[in-house]
């Protein structure tokens, strides 16, 4: 939406295509905040350093510099559009401290930062008269003779397929958290754009880097924010031990996300878990503090886990949270295909490298969303419209008809469940050669079964199952990319932890993984990391 606004401002005819209404996008769920060095005592260089270090030196420093430099003006632009960030006592934009940051530089809108920002984007779309194709699911990116021509989308309401012919396309389809069983992501976060880009001949980058958040409710995957530990909550195992004392004696529960997630997983795998979880114990904080400072968390625990943290510890476990990898783009959001751009969580610029810092991804959507809009607009002004290939719509209709026609076959829900198990068990927090190979074999098998799966719903109107079938296809491809990247990266860096290669290896692995799809087969490649200001050193907190 940020890209659309920017392109519309430059006078172009723009439309947004979204499989759910744009204000339903999962950005809406981001609570914590958005980073920018606004204060005189802070600087974009400091923000840049924290981001580079957080990325375990895999982030491209030229791109990170762009993001940190432009962050303050983009925050102010959001306010000009209508956002109201929370104020401090002097009436300035308030900033809170966040994990991995050397200065409190996270701006927020109460505990609904993403919601506030997303609604402002919607407001500006309306203001600029951008047309919204809502509940249209894109199922093909059309690329011909090496340039983008538009997309084909399924109108969910009627089941009709449409061609949307355009000079350029910006992909901003979010993350793929639903590849895993336990995830903080929405039901709609299925990474579609990444799969579509692969099919259009664009490589994905650094897919093996998946961030796991340590405090997620089981079953629903709902996030208990870091604030719970920030306020002094304990993590305990089945024996009632505060196990973080063992893994991070100094900072204990406040260690970084990957460290806490690994500690929890160890406890669970070594049999000291409680029904596959550990317990987040807040009782010692007292009812008063829980009700005032952690009211949102309390509400979520009551609504979604059925327990009140005032009287009962809350079962939590690690869950997939963020996709560091994505569609490979440069810092102007250009993909390998002219006319095709990408931004947000679906893209990999890369500003997050091997590990994302909290508050940097909303920032990425805003900075690079704007930049993608500018790039797309420049491209449109400099090029003539090229024809939309006639056969494309026919082929897409044919393939959808074939899916709907298939009589007997497995249910897609069984397949999805099997994929979730494979990824959670073999490609989760702890990885090794054996596990990954098993996972890979499993996903390859599911790819074959997928081609023969059949739907129970054959109708046109609002066919959710068809939508989920298409999403599953993308997720299987994404799973395969994650596994391929993880199998080959024989080191541990950021979120990617190999028990058989527990050390970072800058000599061989200070480089990005690229996965291409050609003729249905996946091929690996690598690319150097941009290192400008900060030379790699050990990452210690």
């Amino acid at each position, binding site marked *: 939406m940020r890209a659309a606004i920017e392109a519309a401002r430059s006078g172009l005819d723009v439309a947004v295509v979204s499989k*759910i*209404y744009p*204000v*339903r*996008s*999962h950005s*809406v*769920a981001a609570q914590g905040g958005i980073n920018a060095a606004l204060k005189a005592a802070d600087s974009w260089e400091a923000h840049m350093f924290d981001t580079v270090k957080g990325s375990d030196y895999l982030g491209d420093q030229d791109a990170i510099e762009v993001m940190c430099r432009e962050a303050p003006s983009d925050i102010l632009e959001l306010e*000009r*559009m*209508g956002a*109201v960030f*929370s*104020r401090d*006592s002097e*009436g300035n934009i308030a900033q809170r401290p966040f994990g991995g940051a050397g200065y409190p530089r996270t701006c927020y*809108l*109460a505990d*609904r930062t993403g*919601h*506030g920002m997303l*609604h402002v984007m*919607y*407001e*500006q779309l*309306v*203001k600029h008269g951008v047309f919204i194709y*809502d509940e249209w699911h894109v199922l093909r990116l059309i690329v011909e003779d090496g340039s983008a021509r538009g997309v084909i989308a399924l109108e969910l*309401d009627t089941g009709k397929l449409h061609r949307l012919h355009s000079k350029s396309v910006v992909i901003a389809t979010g993350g793929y958290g639903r590849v895993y069983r336990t995830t903080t992501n*929405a*039901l*709609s976060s299925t990474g579609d754009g990444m799969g579509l880009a692969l099919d259009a001949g664009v490589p994905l980058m650094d897919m093996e880097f998946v961030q796991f958040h340590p405090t997620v409710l089981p*079953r*629903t995957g*709902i*996030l208990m924010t870091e604030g719970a530990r920030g306020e002094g909550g304990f993590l305990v195992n089945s024996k009632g031990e505060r196990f973080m004392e063992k893994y991070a004696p100094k900072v204990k529960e406040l260690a970084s996300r990957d460290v806490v997630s690994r500690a929890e997983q160890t406890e669970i795998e070594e049999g000291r878990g409680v029904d596959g979880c550990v317990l987040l114990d807040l009782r010692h904080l007292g009812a008063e503090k829980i009700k005032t400072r952690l009211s949102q968390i309390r509400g*979520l625990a009551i*609504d*979604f*886990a*059925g*327990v009140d943290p005032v009287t009962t510890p809350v079962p939590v476990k690690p869950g997939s949270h963020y996709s560091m990898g994505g569609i490979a783009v440069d810092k102007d959001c250009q993909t390998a295909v002219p006319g095709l751009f990408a931004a947000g969580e679906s893209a990999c610029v890369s500003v997050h490298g091997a590990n994302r810092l909290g508050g940097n991804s909303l920032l990425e959507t805003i900075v690079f969303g704007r930049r993608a809009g500018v790039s797309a607009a420049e491209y449109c002004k400099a090029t003539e419209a090229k024809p939309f290939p006639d056969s494309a719509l026919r082929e897409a209709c044919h393939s959808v008809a074939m899916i709907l026609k298939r009589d007997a076959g497995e*249910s897609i*829900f069984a397949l999805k469940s099997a994929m979730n198990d494979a990824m959670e068990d073999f490609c989760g927090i702890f990885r090794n050669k054996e596990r990954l190979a098993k996972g890979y074999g499993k996903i390859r098998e599911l790819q074959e079964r997928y081609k023969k799966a059949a*739907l*129970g*719903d054959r*109708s*046109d*109107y*609002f*066919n*959710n*199952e068809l939508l989920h079938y298409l999403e599953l296809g993308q997720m299987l491809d994404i799973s395969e990319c994650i596994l391929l990247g993880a199998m080959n990266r024989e080191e541990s860096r950021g979120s990617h932890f190999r028990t058989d290669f527990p050390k970072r290896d800058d000599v061989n692995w200070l480089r990005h993984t690229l996965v291409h799809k050609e003729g249905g087969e996946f091929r690996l490649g690598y690319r150097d990391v941009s290192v400008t200001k900060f030379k790699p050193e050990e990452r210690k907190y």
Partner: protein
Amino acid sequence: MKIQFRIRRYNPNDRNAPEPYYQAYTVEVALGMTVLEALLKISEEQDSTLSFRKSCRSAICGSCAMTVNGFSRLACNLQVLPEFQKMGGMTIEPLANHRAVKDLVVDMTPFWNKMEKVNPFLMPTEKTASNAVSAEDEELIDQSQKCIMCACCNAECNALEIDERFVAPAALAKAWRFVGDVREGHGVKRLERLSEEHGMWDCVRCVHCTQYCPKGVAPLKQIERLRSAAMKAGILDNPGAKHVEAMAESVEKFGRLDEAAMTFKTLGFLKSLGKIPLGIRMELHGKMPHPYIVPQIEGIEEVREIYREAAAREKEKKKE
């Protein structure tokens, strides 16, 4: 525990059953399970043709509003067991006041159109754009900013049920979001438009919107803020504002409402004539208030004192 769900099914495209009907599904419900989880379980394990909207499953995206046991709710933050125990059943239907498209999916187009009608974006002027927003200014629009556009309020709105052109509570709460913003430059123009027919004065104050909003937006409160802002801005040339003015005047004079006089003052002489048949019917039923024998209540001086005090405070505020 096994619980039976009665779900209203509808597929106008289905030649065998083009009319709505109810279908029962039995679901094994675990502690803490939400209605949305139960629906997902049904669609994954029993019947994949069941259509409903969902995304965030954490009560923030606004997708999953539907009617559960007669009331508008978000499926994703409503737990099955307590609801079942309280209501003795589980009947799920699409949102009211909206056209069903398929099963639990309703046509949201009118909802978005109403939103767009109130120009849901900040329109600062050069002068107002740089107005600093203080924590108190922020507080004033905070509630209205919590809206997730789920349409529960519109589904329960009595005024919308009668008049589908009524702008309805969700969009009115959004309108206050801008009218109440110190950086807004066209507040008065907005209020004038909102005072037109089908606008904010058509709300009948049934409080349903506030009661059923899952996010504490309290749309009626925002409507009241809009109304008093309009009156302050002197936008009085409409039945709604006149009604309020007449009410205030009556209370000041008599310490209570002179209902008959109010009709006259609200609608004007000619339109009041149109109400004569209603008046006759009311008279026959002994419900007609009698204008000539309105007595002043005891302690009328106290009421007037309140008015004087309020006026004085208003002046004081303006001086500051």
